[in-house]
């Protein structure tokens, strides 16, 4: 299946700012079951776009706009081929001891280690421990069976409520209120399974939503980027679990970036000079490539923020207080 993706991000500033420096992770990956056929990135005002690959192999584009500007618009167009894979067969999946062997036998490659340790957003809290206890989250059955169950439990335990949490909300917010967005569910699932020594990573990307008429409607928001996880299942490799939609395997999922958690792979990240009221609006359309070319929809995500308060000298002092 070939998908076309149009992802538009607009930042507006009032009053104008200067010296914006920005990094974006918007280019779909070419590995595993998918291949990025074309990718185009436009930035206005015009800027030189440079790129590099980060330590997870994600393609990062970056640019800076030195002069005064009151808007930055980033448009990414890509077409991606995704091979549909049959759902993982539990008869083939290995046992816990197979998993331990897989982790310890690897020499040279350290990817598993990173994906086994707690990270900024995906770490254990007392709230999470209580939740883990409720779910009997421990080494039982097979890794695949347990993950399948956890995926469903998270789906059932939380309500999907757009904008109920922020991008940098700790998982406790969602755990308390039992509601959140894809990001929270991914972080909760990662934090649950890493202590069981299952390598698990965060995936940022897109999902193609089927028509609402279908019997099982996707919960995640159409027109936004999406997040889910991948876990290492012995004998099967990395398998995608989407706790937001209770899906396993990912033939409608388009992987853009892999990381330990959201902090590694935000779609856009930037810094600018000048205090301003800013607004961020994002729109995403994913369509089969034989459909008419994607058009830009009204933004699905709008974030308004007040100017960051001028840093008090006190904070500056604290930051300057490093030494060796």
């Amino acid at each position, binding site marked *: 299946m070939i998908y076309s993706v149009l992802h538009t991000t607009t930042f507006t500033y009032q009053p104008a700012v200067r010296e914006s*420096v920005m990094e974006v992770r918007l280019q779909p990956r070419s590995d595993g079951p998918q291949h990025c056929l074309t990718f185009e990135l436009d930035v206005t005002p015009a800027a030189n776009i440079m790129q590099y690959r980060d330590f997870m192999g994600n393609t990062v584009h970056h640019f800076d706009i030195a002069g005064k500007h009151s808007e930055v618009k980033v448009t990414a167009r890509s077409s991606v081929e995704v091979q549909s894979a049959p759902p993982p067969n539990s008869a083939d999946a290995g046992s816990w001891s197979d998993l331990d062997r897989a982790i310890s036998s690897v020499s040279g490659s350290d990817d598993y280690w990173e994906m086994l340790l707690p990270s900024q957003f995906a770490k254990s809290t007392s709230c999470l421990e209580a939740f883990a206890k409720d779910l009997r989250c421990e080494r039982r059955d097979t890794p695949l069976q347990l993950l399948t169950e956890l995926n469903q439990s998270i789906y059932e335990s939380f309500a999907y409520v757009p904008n109920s949490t922020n991008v940098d909300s700790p998982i406790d917010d969602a755990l308390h209120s039992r509601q959140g967005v894809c990001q929270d569910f991914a972080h909760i699932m990662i934090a649950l399974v890493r202590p069981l020594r299952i390598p698990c990573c965060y995936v940022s990307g897109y999902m193609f939503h089927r028509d609402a008429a279908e019997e099982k409607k996707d919960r995640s928001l159409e027109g936004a980027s999406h997040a889910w996880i991948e876990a290492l299942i012995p004998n099967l490799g990395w398998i995608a679990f989407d706790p937001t939609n209770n899906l396993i395997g990912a033939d409608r999922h388009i992987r853009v970036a892999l990381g330990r958690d959201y902090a590694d792979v935000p779609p856009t990240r930037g810094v600018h000079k000048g205090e301003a009221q800013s607004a961020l609006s994002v729109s995403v359309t994913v369509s089969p490539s034989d459909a008419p070319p994607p058009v830009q929809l009204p933004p699905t995500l709008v974030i308004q923020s007040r100017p960051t308060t001028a840093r008090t000298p006190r904070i500056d002092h604290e*930051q300057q207080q490093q030494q060796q």
Partner: protein
Amino acid sequence: MQPSRTRTRGLLRRVTLPDSAHPLFRPPFRNYQFDSAYDEMFEAPGIPRPHYRALFQTLLDLPSEELRKSQQAAELSFLHQGITFTVYGNSEGTERVFPNDLLPRIIPHAEWRKIESGLTQRIAALNLFLEDIYHNGRILADGIVPKELVYTCRHFRREMRGLNVPRGIYVSICGTDLVRLPDGNFAVLEDNLRVPSGVSYMLANRKVLKKVFPTLFRDYGVCPVDHYAQALLATLRALTPPNFYGRHEPTVVLLTPGVFNSAYFEHTFLAQQMGIELVEGRDLLVHDNVVYMRTTAGLRRVDVIYRRVDDDFLDPLCFQRDSSLGVPGLFNAYRTGNVSLANAIGTGIADDKAVYAYVPAIIRYYLGEDPILANVPTYLLTDRSQQNYVLDHLDELVVKAVGESGGYGMLIGPQSTAEQREDFRRRIQAEPRNYIAQPTLSLSRAPCFLDGEAQARHVDLRPYILYGENVTLVPGGLTRVALRRGSLVVNSSQGGGSKDTWVLRA
């Protein structure tokens, strides 16, 4: 050679019955005391070591009023030069005149040679270690250093993976803390591979002592240290970035966190000595992966940055988001090879106090040599049996937080209260990876001129190692003094002082 324990006790008894004929008991040594620690000046009570004889005689000959005047002159000179240090954790954020002690610490040539070769070996091995863990990770795959130790280190920078740095040198400026143990041998207490400070005090101490003891200094044949700033500049220039073409000479700047940093005096001092610009983050900007400095004559390209800002604050785009001290986009310019940083990003992994325990193994692994300078025995608290031992002996050991420096986050067992020990017990159990323990070391002691007389105080030694085209050590270093009686903490941030260090030419 060195006073045995019983002999020391005998002396302390004798002190109560002063023998005015014995030179040791004449001023200013009337109340000089010994304990089991190595004494830098005396090989036995009353008998100075050969290299200290001239100083000893001078002190006996000088009227104590004269010494006091010299001390006042030295203090005034420090105040006038504005040689200060800021102590944190104090509501007033006090900036203090850096306490200096009048009496030089003297190191014979042969001892220095051993220190020099030991530190050269160490910096070479640590650089190879850094290059390895940020590339192929051979040492991890071979199981010499546990992977977990590296990946759980707060100072490990994933972003540096696969990135090549000029000449493969990660640590160009290093300050290693040495202590002398009771057997007279130097051992490495810790490596400072991020942004070591203190070198300006070494230079200032020398300047003042030369004025106070001009004749003594000349007659002693002391190796000079005054060329440090030039050696540092040469080291920085040797780190020209890969994309530096044709221009005459690289533009080097010193990046400081700002006036509130404890070492701000040093930043201004070094920049001025090297004749380079002192800049803050806001003075720099990155455009199309090139770093520029704002000057009154417009933008000027920057090639090498001697940064005295920690990794975390260096680039808000890449590291700590809310840093107002850094330069957005700096890391991308660095990755592209348009600018060099000294030290490189991510060197903190190699001076993590838990990785420290593996440095002898690291030296053997990369160089196939035995370490010339020994390590201090270190207990890793992630190991169950070592942790149990430490928890049972908290009153004897020193516990340190692995990522801290400057003497913060430390428990000194023998001088601790039950409450402090309980606090550390809880902290260790909660986060064993964050702490290590070492035996309480008896640092060597040297005479200091305090309250009008010579008193023995614990000292350490921080030589500075530069690594550019080759490894350079300026002969000397910062001898730090625990000025409080009985104290073992020499860190300037904990109220320590310093004294001039004389390495002899022969």
